[in-house]
Structure formats: C-alpha cells, structure tokens
C-alpha cells in the first residue's frame, strides 16, 4: 500500500465509502496507516513526554541510570522551586508585551504603507519600494551590529525606553517589516477597486476608505500577518540575547537560556522551568491552531 491509493480515494475529503480496500486486503480492523502514524507520532511527542516526566521527578531519580521512566512520587514542588529561582512570570509578561505590541504595530504600519504602495501614486514610490524589497533579502546577521549601535544611541540620546536593555528595544526595530508591507500590498492589489472609488466619490477620506472598506476585506491577510509576526516575536532569541542583559527585561527564550546557564545540572528544575515557558505558547497555538496552520501554509503556497 502506498501513498497514492488513499489519495486516489479522495485524499483528505472522502472516506465514508464503506470499508477501504487496503483495510480489507490486510484483514485489519483499522486502517494500516495507523501502523505508520502511531509510532511516528510517538517519536514526535516523546520529547514532550520526557520533559513532563523529568519535571516531576526528584533530583536523585533524574540523575539515575538506567533512567526512571515512571517517578515514584510526583515531585510537583519542582515548579514553585523553578518559579522562585527565576522570574518566569516576568519573562512571560515581557514576551507577551513584546509580541502583542509588535503585532499591533505591524498591522497598523504595514497596512498603511502597503495600501499606499498598492493604490497611491506619489513621487519616489518605485524607488522606495525597491529599497524596502532589498532589505527583505538581507539576513539579520548583516544588520545586527549597526542595529545594536543605533539602538544604543537611541536609548542614550532619544528615548531610554527603546534603548539597549529595555524591552522597547525588542519592539521598535520589528515594529514594521518589509515582509509585512510587501505581503499586504500584494493582497490589497487583488481587491476590486470599485468599492474604494465609490466611497471616495461619496466623500470618504483615504484613511476612512482603508479603515472601513479595505481592512475588513483584508481580514484573512491581516490574520496571517498577525500569526506569523507573533510566532517570530515570541521565539526570537538572537536579538534579545544581544540587546538585553538585565533579568527583569528578558523574554522567555532568553530568560530560559540564562536559567539553563545557571542551573545546567539541576535537570528537574530546568525541565519544570521549560514546561512553564512552553505551555503558554502551546496553549495559544492549540486555541488558534487553524490560523497558525493556514498562515504557515499560505507562505508556502505564496512561494509556489
């Protein structure tokens, strides 16, 4: 049995056509694909399971060979212990603030710019657009050193809250992205012009047209941009590592990495801290799974 037979039956859509051929041929009471998928899934989720198991073991159980697969007593006190040895609550709040504000800024700034690039004719539009597209190609490593110097300068001379060692430094450089502007511009260009024109004739301002007509039509694109920006911001590590040194300004990945550096052999504490760091994102991901999946798939389909 190979991949295509099930695809030929209708792929993900149909299966209600009685007992599928493969099942009959193999004489199994279930689809033989379970024999592939169940072990594969176990391998995929095993790191999660082992993480959870270790997080409720005692240190002596964790540092035991052969490993203790089922802890004798559930040592839940690892969680408060981890919470007391590093401010995970603070890390979480910082991550959440940075991610949410970055998403909101991107939605506003990229909508405005994307709409102008899609619809308005103004002097320098083509040149400006080319420059923005050029920045899209360049990897972060090329820009990170000057970005560090600029951020440091801004913090000293303009506004401390966006300077080095403030979470503002994690928001401002990512508050608008070339990808966001390009992505929304492409989407706006596919919208029919008639609604906008008639609203203009009726006396609506350009901002009103964008807010009342274009953005409601662009909800799927905005949701995609929001989901991708959120994931990027939440998981970003290199820039916070460079820009932040104080514990109380750290985001979850940086805080967790620092915690690991300080407790590298206290595995039970480390795993409890790790669980606390990944549960919020996992929860958000499951709640909004449809949006995240659709957004990631959209980047792939856009590339094809």
């Amino acid at each position, binding site marked *: 049995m*190979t*991949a*295509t037979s*099930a*695809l*030929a039956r*209708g792929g*993900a859509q149909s299966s209600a056509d009685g007992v599928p051929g493969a099942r009959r041929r193999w004489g199994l009471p279930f689809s033989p694909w*379970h024999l592939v*998928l169940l072990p*594969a*899934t176990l391998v*995929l989720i095993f*790191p999660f399971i*082992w*993480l959870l198991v270790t997080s409720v073991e005692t240190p002596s159980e964790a540092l035991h*060979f*052969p*490993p203790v697969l089922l802890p004798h007593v559930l040592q839940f006190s690892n969680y408060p212990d981890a919470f007391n040895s590093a401010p995970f609550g603070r890390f979480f709040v910082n991550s959440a603030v940075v991610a949410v504000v970055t998403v909101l800024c991107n939605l*506003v*700034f990229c909508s405005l*710019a994307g709409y102008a690039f*899609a*619809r*308005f*004719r*103004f*002097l320098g539009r083509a040149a400006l657009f*080319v420059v923005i*597209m*050029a920045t899209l190609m*360049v*990897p972060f*490593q*090329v820009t*990170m*050193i*000057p970005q560090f110097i600029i951020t440091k300068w801004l913090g000293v001379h303009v506004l401390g809250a966006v300077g080095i060692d403030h979470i503002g430094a994690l928001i*401002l*450089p990512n508050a*608008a992205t*070339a990808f966001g502007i390009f992505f929304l511009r492409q989407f706006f*260009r596919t919208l029919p012009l008639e609604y906008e024109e008639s609203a*203009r004739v009726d006396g609506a301002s350009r901002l009103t047209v964008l807010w009342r007509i274009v953005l409601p039509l662009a909800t799927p694109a905005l949701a995609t941009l929001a989901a991708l920006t959120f994931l990027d911001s*939440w*998981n970003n590590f290199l820039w916070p590592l460079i820009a932040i040194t104080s514990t109380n300004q750290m985001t979850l*990945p940086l805080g967790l990495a620092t915690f690991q550096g300080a407790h590298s052999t206290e*595995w039970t504490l480390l*795993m409890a801290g*790790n669980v606390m760091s*990944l549960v919020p994102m*996992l929860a958000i991901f*499951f709640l909004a*799974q449809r949006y*995240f999946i659709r957004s*990631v*798939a959209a980047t792939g*389909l856009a*590339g*094809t």
Partner: protein
Amino acid sequence: MAVPDALLRPGRPRRPGPVGRGIRPSGGGAARRRVVASEQFAGWAFVTPGVVIILLFGAVPIVWSALMSFQRSNLLSPSTPFVGLKNYRQMVHDPVVGQAIQHTLVYTVLFVPGTMIVGLFLAVAMNRKIRFINFYRTAAYATMAISTISEAIVFIWLFDPSYGIVNYALSRVGVPPQQFLNSPSEALYVIVAMTIWGWTGFAVVIYLAALQGVPQMLMEAAAIDGAGHWQTFRRVVLPLLSPASLFLAVWLTINALQLFDEVYLSTQGGPLNATTVLVYYLYDQAFQNFNFGYASAIAYFLFLIILVVTAIQFRVGRRFTHYRS
C-alpha cells in the same frame, strides 16, 4: 512587481497609465492636479512610519555594516580607520572560518533533505481521513510552537551522556554509551537531529497544503492508464509537489545557513570547535570579542553564500519544477 508601477510617474497627471490603480475621480485639469497633489501627500503620510523604521533598522545598517567590513572597528579604540580588504584577507587566513564554513555546509546538507523527507513522509501518511488523524496532525504541528531554546534544552537532556534516555535505549540494543554533544565527531549530528525535529511541523504543513491541491482527476487518469501506486506517486504526485519542494528547500536552506540558537545553547561551538558554524563565530567575534569590523566582513560573506546557494537552487530547481497554469 515594482516595474510596471514605475511607469506611473506622478507629475504627469494627463498620462492615462496602463494599470490605473490610483483613485481618480473625473474632473477638469485643475481638479485633477489637486487630487494628484493630495495623493502625493497621502502616499507619503501613509508610508512614512513603516518606511522610517525599515530604513533606520534595515537599509541604513546594510550600508553601515558594508562600510564597517572595510574598517578596523572594535570597542577598544574610538577611531575606526579604513583598512581596505584587511578584514576579508584575515578571513581567508583564519582556520576557524574554514571550519565554520565546513560545519555550516555539512549541517545544511544533512538538515535540509532530512527535514524534507520526514515532512513529505508524514504529510503523505496524514493526508487521509482516518480516525485520530487530527491527533496525529496536531502532534506534528506542535513542534512549531516550541521555541528553539526549549527544543535545545529538551534534546540536551535526551542526549545526556551519563543519564540520557537515548543512551539507555542504545544500551538496550547493545550499543555502548555515546558522548553525543560532548564528542567532536557526534555533536553536529545531534544538532541536526534536534533541528529536524523542530522543523517537522513546518514541513508537514507545507506538504499537506500542497497535497490537498493535487487534483483527483490526474490520479484517476493515471490509475486508468495502469499506473501502480508507487508509479502514480513518483510520476504524478511528486512532480505536482515540486513547487512546494522548491519552496521548502530554499526556505530551510536559508534558515540552516543561519543556524545559531541551538549551537549557542547546547555546545557554544564546541567541543574543539566541532559545532562552530558561521553565525556562531560571527556572534562570537561581534559580541564576545567586539571585533565589529571583522564580524561585519564575516556577515557579508555569509550573505554572499546565501545569495549564491539560493540562486543555484532556483536555477536547478526550475528545471525540475512543474507549475500548473
């Protein structure tokens, strides 16, 4: 993309314009000119916030680091004299750069096909309506929600030489305990394994979306023509997936060449530089040794590698990619 728009020059309002994207209520010449002026203003007002941020943190740094790569720039002395190609020459003679290039390429060559094969296999298996399919799919997707740091910490523990469960599993099948991340000959492969795990969800999503776009008709036609399951997959499905494969190959390669987080957390480039990849060495030079000039040269070299590799992938890929019209 941007080219046709360049034809629509403002300041020549009478020109009809081939695309006509702007909003132009009909009216006399004077009214039209006023509209165009307000469109100029609106255009600049709308793009300014976003463009300022991208220029300040994107465009300016690109030029700046290019200049810096020709300067002796470190935090020790305030002056940054131009030194010509000295940084680039230093790179050629730096043995660690050679090692870093080698490790980066070995990592990429293993990680990219590995992730694509795992992703394709799982996506094909998951592209059907059977019981628990949502559980299987969610388990794969969940790897996307894990940060690289969480992922690295779990894998360090799984592969711990003394107490790790992987060594325990190996001991059950008679393999002696391995040093894994502590071993110069094994550390890079452990990092390959952990990053493939971390990217599985992404690859599955891309391939599942592409698989669901494969038209039923073609498969039925192949079956009628007498093609077996494997032949249909090889000759019909795989070619139809080629745009998704090209996208994944390019995307994963760009990310692989920029590997950093897992190395920083698990090995710090060690043991004996065995996992020093380009970005790790760049970070080390820039933010541990504060050799900004030298680090900028390495960064531009990395950029060049990414450009060349991506260009080759597109050139070669185009020959094997079938786009449906």
